[in-house]
């Protein structure tokens, strides 16, 4: 299935900003995070199609997954 993965802030370094990637049916968010070698202790926000999700969420074909490190401002 095709998943659009967006990375932000420090997670972009050495990786990418946005890519559409192929994943096997049933892939969980946590598996994408692991495959991209993202440091879990720095994980902040995970969103699929503008909604917050956790690492156990299963992706569906056509989803957009946004992965942010812990960030803040205001």
């Amino acid at each position, binding site marked *: 299935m095709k998943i659009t993965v*967006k990375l*932000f*802030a*420090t997670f*972009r370094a050495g990786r990418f*900003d946005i890519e559409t990637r192929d994943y096997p049916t049933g892939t969980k968010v946590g598996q994408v995070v692991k495959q991209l070698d993202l440091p879990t202790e*720095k994980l*902040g*926000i995970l*969103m699929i*199609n*503008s*909604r*917050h999700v956790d690492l156990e969420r299963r992706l569906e074909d056509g989803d957009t997954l*946004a992965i*942010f*490190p*812990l*960030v*803040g*401002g*205001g």
Partner: protein
Amino acid sequence: MDKIVRIDMGAEGGPKVSFEPVGEYAGLGGRAVTSLIISKEVNPLCHPLGDENKLVIAPGMLSGTSGAMSGRLSVGCKSPLTGTIKESNAGGQAAQVLARIGYAAIILEGKPKGDDLYKIIVTPDDVKVEIDNSLKMLNNYPLIEKLRAQYGDKVAYMSIGSAGERLMLASSIACTDPELRPTRHCGRGGVGAVMGSKRVKAIILDDAGRKQRAPKNPDAFRDANRIFVEGLRKHPVTGEGLPAYGTNVLTNVLNEAGGYPTRNFTSGVFEGGAKLSGESLAEMETRRGGKATHGCHRGCVIQCSGIFNDKDGNYLTKQPEYETVWAHGGHCGIDDLDTVAKLDYMDDNFGLDTIEMGVTIGIAMQAGLAEFGDSEGAIRLLEEVGKGTPLGRTLGSGAGITGKVFGVEKVPVVKNQAIPAYDPRPIQGIGVTYATTTMGADHTAGYAIATNILKVGGDVDPLKTEGQIELSRNLQIATAAIDSTGMCLFIAFAILDQPETFQAYIDMLNAFYGTELTADDVVELGKKVLTAERDFNKRAGFTSADDRLPRYFYTDPIAPHNQTFSMSDEELDGVYNW
């Protein structure tokens, strides 16, 4: 900080300076001092630009010490924009210098009868109030250049630009940063107009010969400060994200979450968001020889600001904040950082709140004065404000008045102050804060974004109503307390997540003052401040009917979540039940 200096600008025979002991305000700082003095001394029914209003300037409890992050300044008055009590807060050098000189507060009261313009020079030996009509209608950058030629670079300056002199409701008070740039503003609520109404153009703070304030228990203070700084450096938000990308790292976050108010709050996603993002801004600043990391005051270890150079590599402005980039950017359909930076510079120079002005320009676009996305149109409209034309004065009166003048129905204001960069429909918690804070719409008053969106300090679903009242209440109390200590609010990201950093913060206060405050005492201080502010507003005529969002937020859903603001009136009325 054992004295208060009171300056009666309207005294017979010219301004009169008097000194008094700090008295009942001993051991307090920042917002606690400004709000308690305003609540006690100012008639809530007074005209904000009349001689009964007062402007109170107060450093924080730990300002002027070697404690990190202690350089926030509070300015308080009755707001000409909202009619409520107001505390407007800025970084820059002013708080540190004022605290070292030794004043817990400067109180400006009365107003002179004539047309003369004044400057106030505060030194450890004296406070002088002098007429200087050569400063009339100077904007902040040329004004500070002129003052530096006389008073030098080892002082801090507070000033108003032409907008404050013209008594515009969106006008700010500028504080200089460590490089003497007038870039750090007490922005919200028209505090510049109150200073202007008292005919005070600039305050020069000179702490020559003074050292850092000494703690009661120096060893304990040093140790607590070390643990506090370690905690800030260790936390990913304060140690990594904010230094590298600044507050504008939020553009992508809010846009992804569908909570980025676009083209006057008609969509929650802006297609040009990536071009405005903190990632793009930091890259551009570095490429042009500016800086992506910069502190607004000495002693800041987070360094969330930066320096923005123009295309030719020349300094244009400081790194615009997220809310500025949103107000002048996505809210107006503009996706060009050079335009945003130019507008940020113009706001700082004229002395205007970037949030109020950006929102106002978006309302002017809604009214047809320019097209959404028209960068040149936005600059042209802001130039009118700088010239003080009738159109410029209208825009300089803020979003609420501009909407009324041009017949715009849907204007995002609470208590006549513009709603900032987070849509309250997909983020219910921040809507509770906008509706109920004593300040008029203000994200900083109870930053529910942390918990609703960023998942710092807990996790409350932004799309649901459950838990939002308690969240906003607790954040409003904590914020009032932090604003009173004079700490930068961004320490909250680390102290909410790391108990040892929170304890170090309490330990710093205790080591400095020789007190035995607990976390509960700090909470009580926050409640005391909010209670005084709320009481002032009640006496000024505000009721629960004012603690609401504009009606359209309850009736018009917004994409992509297609949700309205769903908090009931009864729930909102319960925020202050503690």
